[in-house]
C-alpha cells in the first residue's frame, strides 16, 4: 500500500520553501516552485486499513492523504514537471521507517507480522523550465546521496506516475553464513599482503607476520587442537585481530618508537611512544598536584570530581572519513557515538552537553576545482550541520559550544570533532561510580539496535586514506530516538544496580566492546548466533565486527539478569545474552555451538609489534615580508570580520538546541541583542548547586605551517584563557587532546612523512610543556592519523590539527563573566603582552603575505596574568572580559562593542609587549596569546589595577555612548568605524 501525505496548502510548507531557496541559490535560479510529499510504503500488515494509515501518518488539520493514488496528480499541489522520489538503499537505517513500525506495534498494539515491510520515501515536485542534464544532476544531488539513497525520476509527459513502485527492493545480499579458514602459517610474504588487502584488514606486512608467528606457535596449535578448532586461522579471528589492531583502535603511531632528528639543534633522540612520553607523562606528573582526577585514559572518557556528590566526564571523538562520504550520516553517528562513550563510562554517565568543532574547505571554492569523487565544502557543511542538529536536538542533549573552521586543506577530508560531557553520582551501589568491574560468570548482554551489514570495516577504513574504493558499507545513519530510549532505560537500570559493567559498541562493534571487557575478567565466550540481527544472511565474522549503531554491551550478574531483561522489555529496548565472561585467558568464539575462533587475550591486546619510525625537523623559513604601507587598517578589519572563520555563525548555531536540560548559564551568544560571541560555555549541571563547569576549545591549525610546537601551546592557551576569562578556577580544569594529522608515515604516497612525523613530535612536546606549566592534566584524547584524500592522482592533506577541549570548574556560576561591554564610560584595559607575531594569523591569510614565525606562548607571564584576573573576577569587579584570538585586538574589540552596542575609543600606542616594530596593522591584528580585552566600571578601576599590578596590562581607553569604534595610534586615528558597518561585515549571513 502506498500512502502519500502532503500539505493541503503547499504555500505553508516551510521545509519546501527553505529547500527551494537553497536550490535557487546553488543549482539554478530558474527553478520556480517546489512541493514535498511524504510517502509510506507498507505490505504484509493486514490490520492496517487505508483509513487507519491516513490517521497514523498524517495531520488531519493541515494535510491531505492519497492511498494507492498519486498525490502528484492532486489539484491541491502546484504544477510541476520533474518528480524525484528519494528512498534509502536496502540495509541503510531509516529512522522514519523504524518510527512508523513503532507506531503500528506500540501505539496501536497491532501485529505487523514477520514478513511485513515498512518503507518511507520523500517526493519532490519541481516546477522549472527545462533543465539540461548537468543542472538536472546537480538538482538531484540536492535531494539525495547515491551512496546511501536511490531515486525514482519522472519527467511529466515522458514517464507515467504509475512507474512509481508499490515497494522498493529491500533485501540485502546474503553472505555465505559459515566460518572460513585461512592458511596463514604456510603463506608466503606476498600472500600475507594479499590476504590483508583483499579482506580490507589494513594490516602491514610486519603485523601479518606476527599473526603468522602466532599461528605457527606449537603451544597455540596444541591448545587449538585440544579445543577442537582448526589449526588454521578462521576469518572470524583475522577480522577480530584486524579491528583490534587497527590504527583507529590501537593508536599505532602514538605508540611507535620514533627516531627524532632535530636539524636545528643537531640533536637526535629516541622516543618510545609519544603517548607515554608526553601525554600520559603530563597527567602522571600532575597527579600529585591535581587531586580531582578520578579516571583517566583507560575508560571511554576522562572522569574528574565535580563536587563531593558528583563527578563529571568528557570525551571528544572524530568522525572524519564517514563525514567525507556521507556528511549527514557521518556527523549524526559521530554525535550519537560519542554520547555512547559517556553512557559507557564507569557505571554509566548521563550526557548533559554536546560540543562540536567542524572543519571544512573554503565555502567559496569554485565547483570545478573540486576533484571528482569529493563533495563541495558547502555540501559537506550542510550535511554535517544537519546531522549535528538531528543528533543533538533529538537526543535532548544541548549543543553548548564549538566552532566552524574553513581552510583549503580540509577539502579532502572534513574534520568533524564531536564532544560530549556527562554527569555521574559519586557513588553507585556503595562503590565509586567510575569503577567498571566485570567478574567471571557475568552474562555478556548486548542491548539497543540490531546488527546489520552497515558499518562493516569502519575502524579499518578510517585507518586508511580516502580513495575511489572507499567502502560505502562504512556509512551509517544514526537513530537518536532508539538510543534515547536505550539511555533512559540504562540510567534506570544503573540506579537499580542491575549491571556491573558497561561499554559502548563503536568502532569494531562487538569485537572491540567484548574484547575490551574481556580484559577485566580475563576471558569470554561469545555465542554469535545469539546476537539479534536486522535480517538473515550475515557471516559470523560480520556479526562480530559490524558497527551497527545504538548498541551497548553490558556485564550482568546472573542473579540480576531476570530483573534486567524484564525492565528492558518494559522500556521497549531489545536485549540479548550473547556470551559469558570467563577467566580462561581466551576469547572463545562459537557459532551455533561450534568453535569459530580462539584467541589468547595476551596476544590480541599485546601481540602487536611497535612500529619503528623516523622523524626529521627542519624549521621552515622564518623570514618575513614587510607589511605593505598601503594597507588600511579599517579595510583590513572589515575583511577580517567577513572572513568565514571569524564571521558570525549565528544562522547555523541557532539551529542547535543549546539549553535543553535547563543548565545553561553562558550561552553561545551574548550581549544586549544576544548576537555577540561568547568565549565558552558555562553550565550548572546540578540544580541544587551554584557550582558550575566551563567548556572551552582551542584550535589553530594555521600555525602548524610554522611550528607545531607553538601551534600546540597556543591551542592549550586558547582553551585555558577562555576558561579563565569566563570566571573559571585556575587550579581546577582538565583537557582533552584530539589530533587530526595527515599520514606521517614515510612511504611512496607520503615522501614527506618524516617531516609530518616531526610535526607530531613537536606538537606533543608543546602540548606537554603548556599543560605542565598550566597544571592542566590530559584526561582523554583521540588521534586520527590518515586525514588525506588520494583522488584522481591528486592528494589533499589536512593541516596538522590539534583540538584542545577543556572542562573546568567555576565555583559560583553567579560570578561568570561575558564578553559584551556593559555600559558607556567603562574603562577598557588590555591584559597580556602584544608581541606582534603575524605568522599564521588571519591577517597573513587575507593579506596573502608571509610573516615568518607564529605566536609563541610565555607561560610564566600568562599564569601570572590569569591568576590575577581570576582574583578580580572572583571579587565581582570585571564587567566584561573577552579573550583576544583570531584577528587580534581589532576583532576582539569589535565583538565586545557589538555585544553591548556601545562605542569604544582606545589607543594602541605603546602597549605592553616587545613587537619587532609597531606598524598599526601589526599591533592591531597580531594574535599574541594570553591576552584579554576587559572593561571595568570607573569606581572599580583602582581596585582592579591594584590586583593586576605585577602583570602586563594597560588602560587603553573607554566605552562610549556613540555608535563608533575609534582606534588611535601614536600619530593618527588608525580606525574609525560605525557599529552598523561592523555588524554588516561580521554577520555575512548564511553559509
Amino acid at each position, binding site marked *: 500500500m502506498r500512502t502519500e501525505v502532503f500539505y493541503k496548502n503547499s504555500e505553508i510548507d516551510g521545509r519546501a520553501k527553505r*529547500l527551494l531557496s537553497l536550490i535557487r541559490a546553488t543549482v539554478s535560479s530558474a527553478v520556480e516552485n517546489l512541493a514535498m510529499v511524504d510517502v509510506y510504503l507498507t505490505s504484509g500488515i493486514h490490520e492496517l486499513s487505508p483509513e487507519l494509515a491516513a490517521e497514523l501518518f498524517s495531520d488531519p488539520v493541515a494535510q491531505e492523504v492519497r492511498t494507492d493514488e498519486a498525490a502528484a496528480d492532486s489539484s491541491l499541489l502546484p504544477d510541476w514537471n520533474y518528480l524525484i522520489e528519494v528512498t534509502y538503499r536496502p540495509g541503510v537505517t531509516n529512522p522514519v521507517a523504524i518510527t512508523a513500525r513503532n507506531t503500528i506495534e506500540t501505539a496501536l498494539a497491532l501485529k505487523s507480522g514477520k514478513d511485513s515491510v515498512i518503507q518511507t520515501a520523500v517526493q519532490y515536485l519541481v516546477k522549472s523550465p527545462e533543465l539540461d542534464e548537468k543542472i538536472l544532476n546537480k538538482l538531484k544531488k540536492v535531494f539525495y546521496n547515491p551512496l546511501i539513497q536511490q531515486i525514482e525520476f519522472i519527467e511529466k509527459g515522458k514517464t507515467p506516475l504509475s512507474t512509481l513502485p508499490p515497494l522498493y527492493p529491500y533485501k540485502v545480499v546474503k553472505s555465505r553464513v559459515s566460518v572460513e579458514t585461512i592458511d596463514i602459517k604456510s603463506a608466503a610474504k606476498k600472500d600475507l599482503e594479499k590476504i590483508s588487502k583483499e579482506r580490507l584488514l589494513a594490516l602491514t606486512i610486519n603485523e601479518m607476520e606476527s599473526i603468522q608467528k602466532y599461528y605457527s606457535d606449537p603451544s597455540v596449535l596444541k591448545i587449538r587442537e585440544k579445543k577442537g578448532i582448526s589449526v588454521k586461522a578462521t576469518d572470524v579471528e583475522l577480522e577480530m585481530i584486524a579491528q583490534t589492531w587497527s590504527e583507529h583502535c590501537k593508536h599505532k603511531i602514538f605508540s611507535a618508537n620514533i627516531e627524532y632528528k632535530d636539524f636545528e639543534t643537531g640533536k637526535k633522540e629516541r622516543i618510545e611512544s609519544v603517548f607515554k612520553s608526553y601525554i600520559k607523562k603530563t597527567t602522571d606528573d600532575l597527579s600529585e598536584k591535581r587531586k580531582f582526577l578520578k579516571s583517566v585514559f583507560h575508560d571511554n572518557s576522562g572522569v574528574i570530581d565535580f563536587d563531593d556528590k558528583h563527578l563529571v566526564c568528557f570525551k571528544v571523538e572524530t568522525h572524519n572519513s564517514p563525514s567525507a562520504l556521507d556528511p549527514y550520516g557521518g556527523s549524526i553517528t559521530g554525535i550519537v557515538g560519542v554520547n555512547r562513550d559517556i553512557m559507557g563510562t564507569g557505571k554509566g554517565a548521563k550526557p548533559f552537553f554536546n560540543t562540536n568543532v567542524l572543519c571544512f574547505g573554503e565555502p567559496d571554492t569554485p565547483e570545478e576545482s573540486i576533484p571528482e569523487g569529493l563533495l563541495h565544502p558547502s555540501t559537506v557543511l550542510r550535511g554535517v550541520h544537519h546531522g549535528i542538529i538531528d543528533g543533538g536536538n533529538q537526543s*535532548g542533549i544541548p549543543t553548548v559550544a564549538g566552532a566552524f573552521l574553513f581552510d583549503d586543506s580540509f577539502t579532502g577530508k572534513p574534520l568533524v570533532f564531536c564532544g560530549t560531557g556527562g554527569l555521574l553520582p559519586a557513588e553507585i551501589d556503595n562503590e565509586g561510580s567510575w569503577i567498571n568491574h566485570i567478574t567471571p560468570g557475568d552474562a555478556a548482554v548486548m542491548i539497543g539496535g540490531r546488527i546489520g551489514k552497515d558499518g562493516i570495516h569502519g575502524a579499518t577504513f578510517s585507518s586508511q586514506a580516502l580513495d575511489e574504493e572507499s567502502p560505502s558499507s562504512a556509512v551509517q545513519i544514526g537513530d537518536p530516538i532508539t538510543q534515547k530510549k536505550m539511555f533512559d532505560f540504562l540510567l534506570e537500570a544503573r540506579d537499580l544496580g542491575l549491571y556491573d559493567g558497561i561499554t559502548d559498541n563503536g568502532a569494531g562493534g562487538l569485537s572491540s566492546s567484548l574484547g575490551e571487557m574481556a580484559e577485566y575478567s580475563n576471558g569470554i565466550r561469545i555465542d554469535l548466533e545469539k546476537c539479534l540481527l536486522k535480517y538473515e544472511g550475515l557471516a559470523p565474522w560480520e556479526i562480530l565486527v559490524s558497527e551497527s549503531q545504538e548498541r551497548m554491551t553490558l556485564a550482568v550478574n546472573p542473579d540480576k539478569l531476570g530483573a534486567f531483561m524484564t525492565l528492558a522489555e518494559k522500556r521497549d529496548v531489545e536485549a540479548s545474552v550473547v556470551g559469558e565472561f570467563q577467566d580462561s585467558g581466551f576469547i572463545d568464539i562459537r557459532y551455533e555451538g561450534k568453535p569459530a575462533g580462539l584467541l589468547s587475550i595476551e596476544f590480541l591486546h599485546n601481540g602487536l609489534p611497535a612500529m619503528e619510525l623516523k622523524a626529521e625537523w627542519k624549521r621552515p623559513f622564518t623570514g618575513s615580508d614587510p607589511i605593505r604601507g598601503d594597507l588600511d587598517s579599517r579595510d583590513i578589519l572589515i575583511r577580517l570580520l567577513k572572513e568565514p572563520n571569524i564571521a558570525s555563525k549565528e544562522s547555523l548555531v541557532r539551529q542547535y*538546541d543549546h539549553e535543553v536540560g*535547563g543548565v545553561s548559564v553562558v550561552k553561545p551568544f551574548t550581549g544586549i541583542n544576544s548576537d555577540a560571541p561568547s568565549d565558552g560555555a558555562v553550565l550548572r549541571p546540578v540544580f541544587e548547586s551554584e557550582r558550575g563547569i566551563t567548556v572551552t576549545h582551542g584550535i589553530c591549525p594555521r600555525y602548524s605551517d610554522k611550528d607545531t610546537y607553538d601551534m600546540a601551546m597556543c591551542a592549550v592557551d586558547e582553551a585555558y584563557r577562555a576558561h579563565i576569562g569566563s570566571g573559571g578556577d585556575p587550579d581546577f580544569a582538565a583537557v582533552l587532546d584530539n589530533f587530526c594529522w595527515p599520514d606521517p608515515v614515510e612511504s611512496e604516497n607520503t615522501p614527506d612523512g618524516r617531516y609530518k612525523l616531526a610535526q607530531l613530535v613537536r606538537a606533543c612536546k608543546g602540548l606537554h610543556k603548556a599543560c605542565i606549566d598550566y597544571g592542566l592534566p590530559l584526561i582523554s584524547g583521540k588521534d586520527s592519523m590518515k586525514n588525506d584524500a588520494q583522488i584522481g592522482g591528486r592528494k589533499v592533506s589536512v593541516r596538522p590539527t590539534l583540538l584542545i577541549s577543556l572542562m573546568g570548574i567555576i565555583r559560583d556560576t553567579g560570578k561568570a563573566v*561575558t564578553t559584551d561591554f556593559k555600559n558607556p564610560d567603562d574603562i577598557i584595559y588590555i591584559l597580556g603582552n602584544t608581541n606582534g607575531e603575524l605568522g599564521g594569523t588571519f591577517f597573513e591569510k587575507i593579506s596573502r603575505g608571509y610573516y615568518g614565525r607564529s605566536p609563541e606562548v610565555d607561560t610564566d607571564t600568562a599564569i601570572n596574568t590569569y591568576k590575577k584576573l581570576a582574583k578580580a573576577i572572583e571579587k565581582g569587579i570585571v564587567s566584561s572580559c573577552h579573550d583576544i584570538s583570531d584577528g587580534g585586538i581589532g576583532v576582539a574589540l569589535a565583538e565586545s562593542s557589538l555585544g553591548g552596542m556601545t562605542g569604544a575609543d582606545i589607543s594602541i600606542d605603546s602597549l605592553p609587549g616587545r613587537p619587532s616594530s609597531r606598524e598599526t596593522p601589526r599591533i592591531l591584528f597580531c594574535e599574541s596569546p594570553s591576552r584579554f580585552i576587559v572593561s571595568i566600571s570607573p569606581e572599580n578601576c583602582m581596585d582592579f589595577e591594584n590586583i593586576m599590578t605585577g602583570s602586563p596590562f594597560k588602560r587603553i581607553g573607554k566605552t562610549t555612548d556613540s555608535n563608533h569604534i575609534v582606534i588611535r595610534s601614536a600619530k593618527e586615528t588608525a580606525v574609525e568605524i560605525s557599529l552598523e558597518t561592523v555588524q554588516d561585515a561580521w554577520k555575512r549571513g548564511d553559509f
Partner: protein
Amino acid sequence: MINDDRTVKTAVITGYGINADNELKQAFIMSGSDAVKIHIQDLIDKPELLQDFHILAFPGGFSFGDHLGSGLVFAHLFKKHLKKELDRFVEDGKLIIGICNGFQVLVKMGVLPNFEKDWSCDVSLIHNNTGVFENSWLEISFNSRSGCVWTKNLDVMDVPIRHGEGRFITKSKEILNKIESENLAAIRYKNRNPNGSENDIAGITDRTGRILGMMPHPEAFIFPENHPRWTREVIKEGYGLQIFKNGVNYMKEKLCH
C-alpha cells in the same frame, strides 16, 4: 516535602524521546509541588495511577523523533490507552500543561481546544515558516482576558523557543474566531513571530482554563542565570516559574477548601 492531603502532586510524563522532563519536574518542585516523572508505559500498565495526581505535565522533546509529524505518535499512544482516564482527570477539575512537544501532543490528541468535547482536531502545529529549528529567546505577552489559571496576572515574560514545528494554524477561520472571541489564545509572541503562527499565537487554553499548551519553554527559565542577559540586567529570579506557581497555587487552594 511533607506529603499530607494538601500536597499538590504533579506527574511529569516521560519516555520515547521526551527530553525536557528533568527541568520541568524541577520547575514544579521549585513552585511548591511534589513532582515525579512517570514513564508513559507505567501509566499504560496502571491507568488509574493518573488519578493520584493533581497536575499532569507533558514536557518538551522529540517523542518518537517527530518522524511522522511532531507529537503525533505520542498522541496516538496516549489516546489509545488513556483517553477515559484523562477525561476523568479533567472532569475532576485538575490541571494539564503541555510545553513544546507536550503542546503538540495535546493539540494532536484533540485535548486542545476540544470545543466539541470529543477530542477532534481543530488546530495544529506545523513546520516553522522558516523551515528550520530555532533556539532563541523572545518576549511573550499574556492575554489578560483569558480565563487560563496558568497565566493569571501575568503580563509579559522572556522565554526561549526551541522548535522546528511551532507554527500554530487552525482548521478554519471559524475556529480561529472562536479561539479569539473566547479568549483561549492565552499567550502571544510579542515583538517577533518566529514561525508564522496565526495571530502570533504561542499558546492556547481550553474553555475550562485549566489546560494550557505553549511552544516556548518557561521551564528553561528557573534560575536568573538562565536568562541570556543576566550579566547585564537585574534578574531577580527565574521568572518562568510564575506559570508553574500559578498552577500549583490554584490546586493548593482547591485542596484546602
